């Protein structure tokens, strides 16, 4: 791309109130998030040029705790102000909209009339009590979704609740909750849905997907669909397990474990598998992207992963602090490295000492590592979870 093109873009951005430095910073971080090289930064930058008009977007809250709205407020590249002032025209979002009542709904209605907007959905789809488990503006949440979905260019289901009902659909599912894509399928509405699980959603993923569809134009070309797995999740985010990228992985391999919270082993940063870590079966890139502007993430704070990014995460993951002897085989996508499948299969099949599984099943030691003697502590505590 020629320099003069750059300058034209920067002028346009300056007119929108975005500084050149800020813009390059967020294009760079976006490229990294999308797994693209720096070479794509000009392409991302150029894409901005296409849209003199901000893309209209609507954020609906279903059976939500508002945690995903909270999460998006924690984004920093770009930050939430940039998103709502200079990237999207987010004309309706219950938690942030200045407008109230009928006037707020009218703002949404104006967007619904013109096909092509982005619909972001937070929270479960509430089918209970004929949809009256959720009432907004005198109608049910179901009616709202059915009204908003057909004209949307795409729906981004943020957080596990929107993806499959999340914790709300955990047994006995008292409010008959489900996910956006499941509900739309029932109703025969074929708007594409991008699923971004975890509880709440990680804001970096929302930003990545918005850039993907808005700036790279992958929605219009259909390219976005090629980036999704069979559950509608972007493969570049949900293609590897937490275990794959965990900084504590080395301790797993070496058989160094935390058996009780708050101990010296935790101070040494040992592996949390025996206290229930669901990292081996949970497909997200949390260890890389981390949380809250990269401040930390669950395992770094001494907590086992509870698998909030898995489908049906509560019933699959609980009891959270127990090491699962029989892993329900997770939704293994097509992109899994063999090593991971090996770990999962190994754990499911074997009642072996954990460290031995780690050494052998990863296949990192060809022909199998010589098994260590089972540690005394392991023998005593094989069936124990972390706190109980």
């Amino acid at each position, binding site marked *: 791309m020629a320099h003069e093109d750059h300058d034209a873009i920067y002028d346009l951005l300056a007119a929108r109130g975005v500084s050149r430095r800020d813009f390059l910073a967020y294009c760079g971080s976006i490229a990294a998030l999308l797994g693209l090289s720096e070479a794509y930064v000009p392409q991302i930058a150029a894409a901005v040029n296409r849209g003199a008009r901000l893309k209209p977007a609507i954020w609906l809250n279903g059976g939500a705790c508002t945690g995903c709205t909270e999460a998006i407020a924690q984004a920093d590249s770009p930050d939430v102000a940039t998103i709502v002032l200079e990237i999207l025209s987010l004309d309706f979002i219950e938690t942030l*909209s200045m407008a109230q009542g009928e006037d707020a709904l009218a703002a949404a209605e104006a967007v619904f009339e013109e096909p092509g907007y982005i619909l972001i959905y937070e929270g479960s789809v509430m089918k209970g009590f004929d949809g009256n488990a959720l009432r907004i503006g005198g109608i049910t949440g179901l009616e709202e979704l059915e009204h908003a979905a057909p004209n949307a260019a795409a729906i981004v289901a943020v957080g596990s609740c929107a993806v499959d009902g999340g914790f709300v659909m955990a047994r006995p599912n008292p409010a008959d909750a489900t996910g956006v894509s499941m509900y739309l399928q029932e109703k025969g509405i074929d708007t594409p849905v991008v699923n971004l699980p975890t509880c709440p959603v990680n804001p970096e993923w929302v930003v990545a997907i918005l850039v993907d569809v808005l700036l790279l134009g992958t929605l219009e070309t259909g390219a976005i669909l090629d980036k999704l797995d069979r559950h509608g999740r972007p493969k570049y985010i949900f293609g590897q397990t937490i275990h794959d990228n965990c900084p504590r992985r080395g301790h797993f391999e070496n058989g160094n474990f935390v058996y009780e919270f708050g101990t010296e082993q935790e101070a040494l940063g040992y592996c949390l598998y025996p206290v229930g870590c669901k990292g081996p079966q949970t497909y997200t890139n949390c260890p890389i992207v981390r949380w809250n502007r990269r401040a930390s993430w669950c395992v770094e704070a001494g907590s086992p992963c*509870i698998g909030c990014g898995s489908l049906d995460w509560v019933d699959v993951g609980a009891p959270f602090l127990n090491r699962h002897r029989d892993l329900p085989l997770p939704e293994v996508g097509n992109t899994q490295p063999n090593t991971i499948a090996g770990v999962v299969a190994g754990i499911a099949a074997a009642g072996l000492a954990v460290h031995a599984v780690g050494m052998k099943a990863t296949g990192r030691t060809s022909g199998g590592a010589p098994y260590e003697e089972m540690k005394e502590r392991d023998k005593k505590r094989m069936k124990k979870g972390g706190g109980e």
Partner: protein
Amino acid sequence: MARAVVDPLTRIEGHLRVEVEVNDGVVTDAWVSGGLYRGMETILLDRRPSDAFYVSQRICGVCPVSHGHASTMSTEDALGITIPNNARIIRNLIEAAQYIHSHILWFYALAALDYVDPVKALEADIADTYALAQAAGTGVSDFGAVAQRLQTFVDGGQLSIFTNGWFGHPAYAQDMPAELHLIAVAHYLEALEMQAVAAEIIAIIGGKFPHFMTSVPGGTTFVPTEQKLDDILFRFMRLNDWVTNTMIPDTLAIAPFYAGALEYGGGHGNFLSWGMFNTESPEMTDRYMPGGVVMTGRGLTVEDPDPAQVVEFVEHAWYDSPTGLHPSEGETNGMFDEYNTDNRYSWNKAPRYDGESIEAGPLSRMLVSYLRGVQPVQEIVDGALAALGAAGRPEVLVSLLGRIAARNLETKVVADWSLEWCNELIEAVAGGDSSYFQPHSVDQGAGAGLWEAPRGALGHWIDIQSGKIARYQVVTPSTWNVSSRDAEGIRGPMEEALVGTPVIDVERPLEACRVARSFDP
């Protein structure tokens, strides 16, 4: 007579409908309706107590830390677990971070637009804005750049989250200078940064926010390193500076233009606090913000809180479970017939304390702490009362403006304590205390976690049988505040606070929205 309906009430957590009856420009009756039923308490049945720590946080994505703690404390109460001192301090710190986060977010991102008109800010003179900021003793931003960003945004013609806002509404203080509107807009943007800094502290201690990971029954999984302690302290210092030098001066600068809001919005005048931030004593009344009950109808005095006095009614809510039960025996069986303000009209039950409809929140905590002689609370409240021309009259706090002031002043008190607690933890760790978790076995017992979310009194009640949850009930702050009418037809606290609110424009009842939003529901 006219009925006005605001549905949805935006800029809150969750789904709320506010319906008011207006006579001669004043609200004479009100109904508030919670719009969502998920059945959390039913979902938790037959699971492990520690699972409730994680799952029950999902009740509220704005105050998950408090739900997590109330849940964990209920289990610890049931099983007789005493947590290590380091865990106590760490829990206070993560709660402090959440309080600061939540209060900043509420005041600037949620409530401020009811008092500040962004369009009016466009009329500001930049030089005068700097002068006003200095005179008010509040933070200076690049006001010119903010004004330009705002102008560019407005000129673009797409108003995003400001679409259909009630710009130029006559209830905005007409004498508030454009420069003060611009200062507030600039600080709205800064606040978005500061709430995220506070959330980073929660992430450092708790793994992530919302929905943190570490305060499991028995203590905490977080073992601080020197580096982590430094990361936490640095952020608390930055927040303390901003709260002290921006948030508090902003509050005091804007409040005089809305002095009329001292005259209404007080409601029943009944206040409950279970007490917040643990000292080494296990008593609720020994907490940094002690527990207490104030019934102003009986005078400005405080009594000790008694959890046995809580019952929940469901006559006007969509449940067919038995009514009038204590939460330790409570049931949650949803049913829906129709929205009817004469009958059932909300998913919110009606909790009552000693038979009274009672308010929860920062105003409750600050009043109880003030009356109990908590020194930093007395100092800051007395200072603010003097600044508002109400020196020596704490009773004026029972109002819309008082409720807002209490929340903002509490932010400063907590921000000061947070630095104290950082040092307390650093000294404990440096002194060789390396205990963070109390191992325990889980068999059976019943207990309660009575605690305070930023938005008020929170209780989790648990009954554990054979290591699993046999009964679980939660009474959230918004259950108290957004309560539907009870068996006697007595209004909930928010409904009662709405009565008497002046409304200039029935079609756009901004003043009623302010009162509802002041509870931070």
